[in-house]
């Protein structure tokens, strides 16, 4: 039995899957004051009569870290930066205390200027005095050579609760994002750690056997205990759980568009030959652009509960949600009222929905019937227009080789998968507006929890080999090792894959079956004068993204 739980801002969805079928699903309200209790209750009810030993796996997607950042419930963080030359580093001073240290590593990973021990020790004393327990140490180009960050940590006193090192958060180059990512990781460490410990205790008390995983924003999972040192990876996993759910419910091999239509927003995502696209850099949380790997998901400010108003004689839907629909006692008409008026949906006080639509109709000088259908059409065409504009942007992304420019990979969706509460009722309008077949899987409202249940561990690694310097680095693993001048691209790929295998077995011990792949492999001749002095080799490997489709749909039993 596989368990999936997705805790959202308003609802928490949980499903139990057995033999490829959803056996049970449960929706409850999220208690934002006590997320742990919300999860406990949801799991207890979902698993009430299940034998503990039959639980194979529990996958959790939580908004814990996301909300901690949004509400400012984070620990004060001391930032130790080694900015070197470039942008004014003062711009990224997001810590409670910020230190700009001497020292510089260049783009090839050469230590150009060493860090200064005295300066670090002084910063250490000041941090102690301020009572700061959480640090982030981030150097420019640290993924190319982690030694300076390691040296800085080594110079500090041992009194800190947690320290994030920049090179461990990602192998990607982007100093400002690395700072924000490391900062957030340290800022949410305590909150997350308390939660993870309590979760472990709770599972143990219950005697549930399966391992516990947490969802990441890239649609993959990470096992609970190693996630404690990388809590930032668990932010914003909700939209990805939904995308993975849509994929489990409707397996696709072509390019496709995924719409997750909610109350306030509609998330747009794309599949390339059935594989979800990733954010090019990383996800943005609370205004902080990060390097956290994430599925590309673009929120549009329109949903079933969007406020409808009239300006001039035009209908405006969204961008705000002022409350539920009028039929449920909300303050203004919403698309949901239109669905109720048209008898597509039964919900709340139908008379109130009718009144809301009639008022709008009166202002527009249209029949109520026509008004309701116009609302749905406008909503669908808004979504279509934005989705196609987004697609155009994706298809015109810069490329850096002549080959890619001559033979570009153009994304061309052949169908649409729509999930989320209102999806089913809007199918007709969406098909018309998008000009593509729209599939709404029958378990669409709990797709997020299904996605959570079926997601698999993911991990990636970046390897950089410089045969002129005779050095290989793998930042995510904090690894720097010597290589011979004869080291080749093939050897680099092999080494990267074997290191990724090791990393994966540490981050997700039960994932032996996972398939790995090389996603980038480049080798540049390095020339000095007119002689080749070596090769600059760059390799990126990852766990091949995978989702287990549900075997035939079952409506299961809502409890």
């Amino acid at each position, binding site marked *: 039995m596989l368990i999936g739980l997705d805790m959202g801002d308003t609802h928490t969805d949980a499903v139990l899957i057995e033999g490829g079928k959803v056996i049970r699903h449960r929706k409850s309200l999220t208690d934002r004051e006590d997320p742990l209790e919300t999860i406990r209750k949801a799991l207890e009810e979902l698993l009430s009569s299940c034998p503990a030993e039959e639980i194979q796996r529990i996958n959790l997607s939580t908004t814990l870290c996301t909300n901690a950042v949004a509400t400012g419930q984070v620990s004060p963080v001391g930032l130790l930066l080694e900015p070197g030359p*470039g942008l004014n580093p003062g711009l990224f001073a997001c810590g409670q205390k910020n230190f700009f240290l001497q020292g510089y590593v260049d783009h090839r990973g050469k230590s150009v200027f060493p860090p200064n021990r005295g300066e670090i020790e002084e910063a250490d004393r000041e941090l102690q005095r301020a009572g700061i327990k959480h640090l982030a140490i981030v150097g420019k180009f640290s993924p190319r050579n982690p030694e300076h960050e390691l040296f800085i940590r080594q110079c500090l006193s041992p009194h800190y609760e947690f320290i994030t090192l920049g090179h461990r958060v990602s192998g990607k180059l982007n*100093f400002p994002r690395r700072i924000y990512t490391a900062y957030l990781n340290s800022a949410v460490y305590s909150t997350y750690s308390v939660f993870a410990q309590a979760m472990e205790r709770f599972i143990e008390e219950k005697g549930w056997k399966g391992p516990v995983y947490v969802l990441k924003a890239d649609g993959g999972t990470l096992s609970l205990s190693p996630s404690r040192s990388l809590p930032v990876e668990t932010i914003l996993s909700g939209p990805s759980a939904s995308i993975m759910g849509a994929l489990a419910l409707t397996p696709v091999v072509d390019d496709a568009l995924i719409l997750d239509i909610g109350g306030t927003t509609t998330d747009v995502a794309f599949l390339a030959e059935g594989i979800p696209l990733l954010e090019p850099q990383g996800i943005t949380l609370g205004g902080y*652009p990060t390097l956290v790997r994430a599925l590309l998901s673009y929120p549009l400010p329109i949903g079933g509960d969007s406020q409808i108003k009239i300006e001039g004689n035009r209908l405006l839907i969204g961008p705000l949600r002022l409350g539920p629909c009028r039929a449920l006692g909300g303050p203004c008409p919403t698309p949901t009222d239109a669905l109720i008026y048209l008898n597509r949906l039964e919900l709340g006080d139908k008379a109130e929905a009718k009144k809301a639509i009639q008022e709008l109709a009166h202002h527009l000088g249209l029949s109520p019937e026509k008004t309701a259908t116009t609302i749905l059409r406008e909503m669908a065409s808004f979504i279509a227009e934005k989705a196609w504009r987004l697609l155009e942007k994706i298809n015109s992304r810069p490329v850096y080789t002549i080959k890619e*420019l001559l033979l570009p990979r153009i994304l061309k969706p052949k169908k649409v998968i729509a999930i989320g509460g209102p999806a089913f009722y809007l199918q007709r309008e969406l098909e018309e507006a998008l000009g593509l077949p729209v599939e709404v899987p029958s378990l669409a409202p709990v797709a997020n929890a299904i996605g959570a249940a079926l997601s698999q561990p993911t991990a990636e690694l970046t390897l950089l080999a410089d045969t002129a310097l005779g050095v290989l680095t793998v930042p995510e693993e904090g690894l720097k090792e010597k290589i011979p001048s004869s080291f080749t691209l093939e050897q680099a790929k092999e080494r990267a894959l074997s290191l990724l295998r090791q990393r994966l077995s540490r981050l997700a011990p039960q994932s032996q079956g996972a398939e790995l792949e090389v996603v980038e492999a480049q080798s540049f001749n390095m020339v000095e004068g007119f002689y080749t002095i070596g090769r600059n080799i760059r390799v990126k490997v990852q766990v091949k993204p995978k989702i287990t489709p549900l075997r035939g749909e079952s409506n299961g039993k809502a409890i």
Partner: protein
Amino acid sequence: MERLYKAKNRLGLVFFPAFDWAISPTHPEREERLLYTQDQILEEGLKDIEGIEEYRAYLAPDNEVERVHICVPDVRSRVTEAHLVAAGGAIVAGRKVLEGEVDKAFALVRPPGHHAFRIVHGARGFCTINNEAIMIEHLRRHYKIKKVAIVDTDCHHGDGTQDIYWHDKDTLYISIHQDGRTLYPGTGFLEEFGGPNAYGYNLNLPLPPETGEEGFLYALENFVLPVLEDFKPDLIVNSAGQDNHYSDPITNMRFSAQGYARLNDRLNPHIAVLEGGYSIEGALPYVNVGIILALAGLDYSFVREPDYSPEKVSQSPRITDYIARLCEETLQAWQKREELRARHFQGKDRVTRRRRIYYDTEGLMEYQQETTLICEECAGLSWIDSHTDRGSHILAIFIPRDACARCQKEGHALFEQTETTFYRDGIYLQDRVEDVLLKK
């Protein structure tokens, strides 16, 4: 809470490093050239800055090339896709500015183009087609711009750009470079002052070797900016070569990333297009970050090479004096250009010049005889009899963009009446009024 940094000027970037193209494996124009620049741009997070937008380059179609060049025998036999993408990248950058999508743009493309002449028999100085000229002529064709100033800050004299705009007084070409007596291509002196119909609109400032930061900035303030003030261009283009850097392996100057950033800040061009620059590790990453920040109107004061020291960019007092005199002399020539034109060309109806053009990549020599009609109405009809030591021989006729009725008529008549038997590789007519290239 907004953590993104916002640019004062909206800046468009077209970055095309051509990671799969080289002239030859160990040539300075190779795959690796912009690799570390890309690393630095990524690491600085420049693309996350609000207002900095990156665009995809495209392959310029042949007719864009033909608007500027006569390739012998044709475009496809002389250029590779890489050349067309570099030119296309510059066009994208220019369009984004003129469409008003951005305030400024920077095309970081390779290979460079400023050594490419009107007639193209091959590659010279790593260049085959002139990216800036192709961009400018595209923009002139599609938008309302007339006067363009090109300020070429590459260390080598942009002899190709000079050739293309030799007769065009709507395009002011200013080149600041290392003295041709000490560096390829050996040209670029004050005497090269423009053709008879555009005399004074080609300005060369050959700086002595070992010119420091001070010298460059002096020349900018005391020569380039005053001339631009006078000329009042609709569009300023910087041919942003980066080989004046103190660490460049093939030149002898002492400029820095800070200097390049300040130069772009003061020059304030609408569009910058990368030209040369072969210190790919020690200079380009920092120079390009400096230029991007300066163009975006952001703080570049923290940009500096890891090995920077004031001594590396200093210059001797002798050089300081020399540059002051050079600027003075050149500025005066610019101010007296009408007088000088009258003195040189009064009473003449045409001017003929002969020259040899060397294509170093192929080791090919071209011999040109160019005749230009002196015309008060337009840039004047020109024709070039061109043959090479490989036996190729053509006649190229150029009817300028603003050609008067007489120059148009004479150009067509020349094309009709000349016998092809003498020119074994054909007779070309570049008719800019009709925007076509004819060949017979």
